[in-house]
């Protein structure tokens, strides 16, 4: 974008809640080294100029195929990795806005309790050598709660909150199923009363019959604790289920961002539309509706010219091949980065009023 660091807030939605988090022109390039002298030969543009915002109390879904950079975005926001450039504006409870991007380890410590993470892998995210009490109480301990009985009370309350028995405190993670472990991970994330919770594929490693439990729990907790979620997932149905608004990413770029129902019913980016049509639906009578998208996802190390999606796009024109489209607001609160967003009529997904069964 030519005009630099212009904020991305929707023009018409000035009355809406202020953003808790605003990411501006975030970039994360991973260098590729080669040879004995470790010369940098190329860069993987994992995140390539992404701007988005999350309003307080809402769930923003971040969806895309593998390698689209959605996880890198979430890790940059949490400052688990250092972004190459861009701003991560975080609004604290008192209204003070701070850019997290340039902060170092010690400066970040103050912000850590306010943003927490729920992990994908229920097995790798809990230290197998610690009891549930130790795991859930660790954030409390390192943030200054030294009294053990106080921590025990707190952990008991957290376990009840996520639907686990308090008797489980003395147990080790190996005694729990995937769904239960995910609840423990949620309890840990909530221990410090965070305002923003980044959930990175929190249900994709779980069995189908357990996913709904965790999704419902997350919805419940959001209501009870006024949490803000950034929900990262590859599964469109899960993202649709939980999000107020959805961002779609493709090869390191944000292609579309809109309210969930709006995005699914009237997508404005051809990739969003294609992605939705490719999702297999649990309905045998929908077989003719499902369409595949030809071609393969471009490599972020060697992206095509112009719009990264143009080689796979049936609507591509000359301008798509040469110019990179910018993310712009075409209708209130609906952001698209497509040259032809206004003229295209793309099919969306209608809500099925009559439920299955």
């Amino acid at each position: 974008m030519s005009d630099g660091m212009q904020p991305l807030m929707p023009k018409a939605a000035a009355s809406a809640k202020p953003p808790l988090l605003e990411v501006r022109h975030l970039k994360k390039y991973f260098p590729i080294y080669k040879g004995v002298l470790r010369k940098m030969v190329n860069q993987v543009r994992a995140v390539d100029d992404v701007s988005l915002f999350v309003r307080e109390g809402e769930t923003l879904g971040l969806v895309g195929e593998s390698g689209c950079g959605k996880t890198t975005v979430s890790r940059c926001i949490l400052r688990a990795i250092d972004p190459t450039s861009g701003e991560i504006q975080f609004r604290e409870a008192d209204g003070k806005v701070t850019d997290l991007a340039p902060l170092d380890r010690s400066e970040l410590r103050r912000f850590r309790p306010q943003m927490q993470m729920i992990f994908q892998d229920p097995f790798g995210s809990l230290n197998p050598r610690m009891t549930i009490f130790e795991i859930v109480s660790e954030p409390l301990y390192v943030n200054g709660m030294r009294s053990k009985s106080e921590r025990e009370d707190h952990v008991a309350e957290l376990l009840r909150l996520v639907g686990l028995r308090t008797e489980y405190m003395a147990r080790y993670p190996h005694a729990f199923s995937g769904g239960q472990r995910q609840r423990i991970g949620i309890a840990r994330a909530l221990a410090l009363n965070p305002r923003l919770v980044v959930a990175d594929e929190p249900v994709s490693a779980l069995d189908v019959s357990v996913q709904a439990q965790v999704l419902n729990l997350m919805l419940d907790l959001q209501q009870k604790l006024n949490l803000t979620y950034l929900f990262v997932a590859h599964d469109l149905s899960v993202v649709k289920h939980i999000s107020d608004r959805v961002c779609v990413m493709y090869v390191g770029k944000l292609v579309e961002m809109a309210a969930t129902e709006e995005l699914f019913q009237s997508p404005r980016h051809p990739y969003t539309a294609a992605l939705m049509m490719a999702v297999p639906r649990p309905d045998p009578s929908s077989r003719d509706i499902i369409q595949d998208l030809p071609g393969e996802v471009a490599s972020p190390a060697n992206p095509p010219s112009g719009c990264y999606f143009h080689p796979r796009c049936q609507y591509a024109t000359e301008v798509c091949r040469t110019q990179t489209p910018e993310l712009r607001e075409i209708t209130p609160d609906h952001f698209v980065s497509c040259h032809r967003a206004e003229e295209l009529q793309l099919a969306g997904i209608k809500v099925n009023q009559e439920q299955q069964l």
Partner: protein
Amino acid sequence: MDNIEPKILQPEGVAPLEKAEPEIEATAARAETFEEPLTTTQEEERISIASNWTLVWWRFRKNVLAVISTVVLIFLATVVLLPDFFATMSPEKTNARLAFIPVQSIHWLDEGQLKPWVPSVEGKRDPVTLKMLWTTDETQKTYVKFFGSSWSYSVLGLFESNIHLVSGADQTQENQIFLLGTDRLGRDQWSRLAFATRISMTIGMISVIVSVVLGLLLGGISGYFGGWIDNIIQRLIELLQSLPTIPIWLALTAALPRTWSPEKVFFAITIILALRGWTTLAREVRGRFLSLREEDFVLAAELSGASQARIILKHMIPTFTSHIIATSTLAIPVMIVTETSLSFLGLGMRPPAISWGVMLQEAQNIQTLALAPWLLTPGLIVIVAVLAFNLVGDGLRDAADPYSH
């Protein structure tokens, strides 16, 4: 075949249902206050609260060979701590007239009674070959006593004791008990073996401890911090590993001044062995650090604001301690064998110090082997010790990660 009569399925025939509400409300209600039933059996509860070390132990004890080897190692460790208790006489005591006495085995019964004794040996020189021929005289018995008292020694520097595993029953006279025979100088092989075990095992263990300390420190720095310091340490490791070991060891040990006391030589040798031993371990530690840095639970700790020191001490080190112990256990036999080989070549420990290698030096020529095969017993002990360490190490390695299943 369990044929269920349809009438049982009628609601009145069924025990009261837990959920009587309509199904949908039931599921929704359960979703809110969902709790899984507590596992009831004691066995499950026991497993649930079993710590990592408990799980490692449960898995380790299933490995029969490893458990047997552990017992062997515990026995060897007692020998290391209390060689005097096992010795029947001073290992230094020479008597040229008692050279090459063969093994005297203990007879348990004396005239139908439990009264252990060893037959005395009489030597006669063959007038033609001038070779000593030892014949046992079963009529002359030297009675022995278990846990009897003899000369006194200090137990770990704490207190004095004069209890010995085997001693002559009658302490007023000179007892000749050569359970494993004697060597060229008439020194008691059994007692020497006890003291050699102390030296050889200690060298192995101390050099591994030095390696572990160096390996943990340098590998940890290398793996956790990365960057140029990692580069330097890795190049150093590659350099050390590319040096041909045997010539280097030979050169270094040969350079040890002949005038050094056995203690000095002992420490010099442990350092020489550890100098290269740490490299393998450092690589392992570095690899663990690198992979652990990527673990989600480490990131979770980081995101909760935990300090680097806490992450290393609470999350990373406990995770690979069991692996380090297993690797170290496997490193000890290598050290033992190296020390034994060096000493055997006359370049490691030197007499008057006693180690397995020094003892094996006595068994260097075929003639002694033919005449006094009992001089090979240190070799047997080396094999037993090395095997035991390896089996325990393997068992630990397999048990070290109880979460792999």
